[in-house]
């Protein structure tokens, strides 16, 4: 058993920070919330309804995992464009600038550093507007400037009534965020 007895909710505009030592189940909990992982017990509710793998819930959510899905043979622009088009997203050029990717638009993914790849993944959050953001250690590898841009993006998302659930080790300073600490319980 990784975790049990968790019960919490996030209101519109709210943020929930998951923290805890490595292996405490932050990523697994996020995958459960995203609907990628089926919990052995319990459920996730969205707007008062159970949502496991529901279509309209998927349409309301962004999930950023701990990996960087950036294709080495595609340019930064192409990488972002694919996911934006798949989700019916809008113009992506302004989004590139927000995360400082403007000059990198034509650079192929294989030449990017891990921090730059992370920025490409985070840019996906802004190309398509979704109320729920599930972020798994979103700031890994980012420089101070990019972390500031990320925090600004998150706060403006919350100001518009969006919801954030993020697993992090404390690099992300969000205002009035609820904190859920996962400990390593008895095996």
């Amino acid at each position, binding site marked *: 058993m990784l975790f049990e007895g968790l019960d919490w909710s996030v209101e519109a505009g709210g943020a929930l920070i998951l923290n805890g030592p490595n292996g405490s189940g932050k990523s697994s909990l996020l995958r459960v919330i995203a609907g990628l992982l089926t919990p052995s017990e319990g459920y996730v509710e969205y707007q008062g309804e159970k949502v496991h793998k529901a279509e309209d819930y998927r349409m309301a959510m962004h999930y950023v995992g701990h990996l960087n*899905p*950036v*294709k080495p043979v595609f340019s930064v622009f*192409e990488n972002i464009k694919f996911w934006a088009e*798949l*989700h019916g997203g809008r113009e992506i050029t302004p989004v590139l600038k927000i995360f400082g990717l403007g000059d990198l638009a034509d650079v192929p993914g294989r030449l990017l550093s891990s921090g730059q790849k992370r920025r490409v993944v985070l840019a996906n959050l802004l190309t398509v507007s979704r109320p729920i953001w599930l972020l798994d250690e979103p700031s890994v590898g980012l420089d101070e400037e990019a972390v500031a841009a990320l925090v600004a993006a998150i706060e403006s998302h919350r100001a518009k009534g969006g919801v954030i659930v993020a697993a992090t080790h404390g690099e992300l300073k969000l205002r009035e965020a609820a904190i859920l600490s996962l400990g390593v319980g008895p095996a």
Partner: protein
Amino acid sequence: MRAWSILVQRDLLMAWRRSSDIFSVVMFFILAVVLFPLGVGPELDTLRKIAPGIIWVAALLAAMLSLDQLFQSDADDGSLDLLLLAPIPLETIVIAKCCAHWMVTGLPLILVAPILGILLNLPLSGLAVMILTLVISTPTISLLGSVGAALTIGARRGGVLVALLILPLLTPILIMSANAVDLALVGLNYTPLIALLGAFFLICLVICPFVAAAALRLAAE
């Protein structure tokens, strides 16, 4: 449909940028077929007799080379999670992937096969049926292969495992295709076999996307 074409375009572009993968599949196919006359000897009658079987076996093995990468690279970099969460059914994504896979492996094999048929002294009547069986059944390879590729995500030496899983299931194609060409060569009616190949393709088209999608969902857990 729009999402479907976006997915196919993405896989085609990705394959085009890594065209060495396509090239190696086609070269393997050509080499495997060309080696046979060297081993069996140059008697034209013998070659004509074994040509359909050789070309089909080589095509099956060549297609196996490309299958392990069908989902593996998406699984490795986390794209698979995002595809699972995308606002389109996973079955549609599987069909799109199979379609792109067929265009970059099945189609080149079909284009090269006539030259190899002539090389093995296959008469024109047999050659036409040979191409017909390839056109009908290479998509079946991609569809069944997607099930194998989805089941072996994360496995070490996944390529070998895909071949072990899928090749036994593809034996009906090999038997019926080679027989259809043989029948055409002696002037007998081969259409029932072609119809069976078509039926096999349609069955796979209906079942395989669901099975592969289920395997992908399991792989993500």
